[in-house]
């Protein structure tokens, strides 16, 4: 499974986002994930991928594609 697919699955199962909302350019704010929720998201993603995800590395204005890029780069290098 790709990083995108795994992240999408996480957003659906853990955060109740519907799959059809998950476009590359959708922002976390548009998914109702504010900065507080993103701290939780970073913690869950860190566990899922086994790479560090800092709680200040993602902002509500970031897109799903940006999160995929951030985590993807670390998964490759890990």
């Amino acid at each position: 499974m790709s990083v995108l697919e795994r992240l999408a699955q996480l957003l659906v199962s853990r955060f109740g986002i519907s799959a059809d909302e998950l476009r590359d350019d959708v922002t976390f704010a548009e998914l109702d994930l504010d900065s507080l929720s993103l701290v939780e998201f970073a913690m869950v993603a860190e566990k899922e991928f086994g790479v560090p995800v800092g709680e200040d590395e993602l902002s509500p204005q970031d897109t799903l594609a940006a999160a995929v890029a951030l985590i993807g780069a670390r998964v490759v290098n890990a």
Partner: protein
Amino acid sequence: MSNGRWDAAVTGLGLVTPGGIGVPASWNAILAGASTAASDPELAGMPVDFTCRVPGFDADELLGRRVAWRLDRYVHLALVAAREAIADSGLDPREWDGSRVGVVMGNALGGVRTFEEQHCALLREGAKAVSSMLIPMMGVNMVAGYIAIDCGARGPNLVTTTACASGTTAIGTARELIRTGRCDVVIAGGAEAGLTRPILAGFTRMGALSRRIREPALASRPFDRDRDGFVAAEGAGVLVLERMDHANARRARVRARVVGYGASADAHHATAPDPSGAGVEKAIRMALHDAGIEPREVDHVNAHGTSTPLNDVTEARAVCRVFPGRPAVTSIKGVTGHSLGAAGAIEAACTVLSIEQGTIPPTANLDRQDPDIDLDVVSNRPRAQRISVAASNSFGFGGQNAVLVLAAA
């Protein structure tokens, strides 16, 4: 008794109880008079391993996971009840003036389930494993905040916490907001979801819970000679209170009125009621005085009736002294168990239904009434009776007493 424009009309009801989700399911179970207490898998191996839980409550399904994941169960229960109550009132949150809508909710324990889960995460994996949602999920105030967010209520917003009287205190406080003209509408009630192993262990260690582990369905037996403690429960009850002229202007269905509220403290002991019942009596008399009602005008008392040895006899003494005319008394806790901060709100909603339908639900498991309790307790089956005025009692640890007087529309 006044019936003016400043009266608090009850125009909506919402219930989530061990009897079921929604007013019809809850009320039918309460009228049926069979206990909902059952062995609780989450408490396996504990000295008291039964509770009254809301059956089949799936927050993801009822609220959507997108909303539910960031809320504690006690807020889940409250939101479902609040949405039902608002829909029942016919008010449309998209159209109301939110600045005139308040929220007052009762709660005793806050998000204890969340706190315990996160404490376990902390012990297991350290501080980095603690959820950023811990504080907003566990706060005892958050239930009122989240109801406001859900429906756009921008008026006064607070949580009252008087232990097992919290829901009653909330409705009494909400009525003040209506009467003083601060709000046109107040979403008022109580919610509790504290059926966790530590909480149940604590109540067990206090000796407050029934120990009837072989017969959970017979454990909650208010006013019965063989009662030995309460059965812990969860739930939520919400009433929409509305200024009478506001309700009339939109031709709302007024289901009943909240006409009096009294509150007192025993100033006696942390957990035991003052055996004289003086504090309880004072709260009842204060509520009657507030309503401008004579004791003989009260047809029905929805009792606190927890099924603990001390509460029921103390409450009975006070009720006897205030009401020599022997109004019909019931305790729904035989069916629902005791949902602490939600109980008073659930019982106020049931009192509204009793007034509206002329039906008093029976007290479950009342096989042999305690000879020291000289009350006319409704048992076995519902009693059909016209009710003009009823009182609803709630008493909390800390000696905190709260009483509502409700009247027919």
